[in-house]
């Protein structure tokens, strides 16, 4: 029995299954068809089962059941009540109780925003403060320099560095100017011009992002083709 299981789940079996799955999905490239449809639904079932498995084995058992039952922390039973509140969404009469639960979840979710905002943006504001004129290195009065983040203005700045900084600040400001919604660009030509340049800069950046992503996406395919040729068909080594 265990031999059979081993054979059915051994390395070769995994590779064969993988190859069949891969080819089935790839049929979609030609057109939607019954093979794809079958594997799509099979995949969906596996995915939902996998999600369920993760929730049970990684959250509910170690974080809820074990503390509550094995370690005697009985108050975890309240979590069941909390979770149960969500299910009132199906009650016509007491629907609002689920709203209370959603309210708490939303509250917790938005509570992060201050930390998120500061953590992600303040270092970037500092990094945007770039000198625009070349200069030699110099010392600053004691007590100020130590706390200044990496972009120490004390280092010297070359002409090309200053130019780079100027480009950076120019793009940053024009792009920001594009995102003003309450400003009538038709009335203010200068601001409108800045916003238009901002949009061009955005398109340029998007092009660059697209270009740099191609590499990643091709890599995925390379991984798959390698799998099919080397692991499955064994025609390359």
């Amino acid at each position: 029995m265990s031999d059979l299981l081993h054979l059915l789940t051994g390395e070769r079996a995994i590779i064969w299954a993988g190859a069949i799955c891969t080819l089935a999905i790839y049929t979609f490239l030609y057109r939607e068809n019954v093979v794809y449809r079958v594997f799509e639904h099979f995949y969906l079932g596996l995915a939902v089962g996998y999600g369920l498995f993760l929730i049970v084995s990684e959250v509910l058992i170690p974080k809820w059941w074990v503390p509550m039952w094995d370690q005697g922390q009985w108050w975890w039973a309240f979590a069941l009540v909390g979770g149960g509140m969500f299910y009132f969404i199906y009650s016509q009469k007491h629907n609002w109780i689920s709203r209370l639960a959603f309210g708490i979840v939303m509250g917790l979710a938005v509570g992060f925003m201050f930390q998120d905002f500061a953590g992600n943006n303040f270092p970037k504001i500092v990094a945007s403060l770039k000198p625009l004129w070349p200069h030699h290195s110099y010392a600053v009065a004691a007590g100020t320099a130590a706390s200044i983040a990496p972009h120490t203005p004390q280092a010297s700045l070359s002409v090309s560095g200053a130019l780079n900084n100027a480009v950076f600040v120019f793009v940053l400001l024009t792009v920001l100017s594009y995102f003003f919604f309450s400003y009538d660009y038709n009335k203010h030509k200068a601001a409108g011009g800045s916003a238009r340049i901002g949009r061009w800069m955005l398109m340029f950046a998007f092009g660059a992002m697209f270009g740099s992503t191609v590499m990643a996406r091709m890599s995925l395919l390379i991984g798959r083709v390698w799998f099919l040729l080397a692991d499955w068909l064994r025609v390359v080594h």
Partner: protein
Amino acid sequence: MSTGLALPLGAFFQAQPNHKLNALYIAGCLFAGGLFIALLTQTPKRFRKPLIVSATFIAGLYFSLEFLLPPKATAETVLASHSPWNRTMSALFGWFLRPLASNSRLAPDENWLSLYLENVNTVWQVIGAFTFALGLWNLIHLHFRNVVHVTKGAFASSFFFLGLAFMIFAGYLKQFSGIPDLFAFATSGLFFQLDAAMFSLIAFFIISAAYRAFRIRSFEASIMMAAALLVMLSQIPVGAWLTSWLPDHGLLSNLRIERVGQWVLRQPNAAAQRGINFGLAVGMLATGLRIWLSLERGSYFERDV
């Protein structure tokens, strides 16, 4: 929380080593919870909205305050410093800073609220896990209907159940019987493979998308195309080979395509992204603020409860 209140509460929330007693306690919890919900169902209409509003606000307060209140180290610094600013601060907020600085349970970068971070996170995770069945039920219901009513999708839908049953069975074997083979097969042989195959479809789609979109039709499309081609060329050895006749050092070396590509990514691209992200951050802050203070509008938020 004052120590006067904390002590009895702490004594009450003790782990219960005795399984039978523990079961009793759990039953008590569930009973209390049921009572609580029963009480909620009796809440008069006019109290419901205020209740939701305050629950949302209080829930949001925890992480906000944990971040915004100073940690122990700051309190110590302010109290110890003699600068006029810090002296004013100690005079004004001494009642708050002194107990914070003298609390021995806290690490330098913690305040009182930091102590509960892990617990709050876990509770959040556990309660979130309980909601999974909401979606699962919908899927099962939908495909079950397909199969039973033998609709057009019945054949395919039956494979949904096959996959689901297989994964649950394999997971069960691994988790509760300690046989990992089938689960390894279900994940490494099927699920992860399907994942990888689906993911790699993007490689095909990126070609057809680029082929269609990158035409010199408009100025904007042309800029986008130029930047994309430039960056793509700069990333592959052939690109480097194209401009390898340029010197390695000096002014002209900056025109080597790999350097131009680098420059595009590091200067204009990074700046543009930073611009977008500043805007997004403000948008997130505003939307978050509206939700937190229950100022948000739209069907879901305005409905009567």
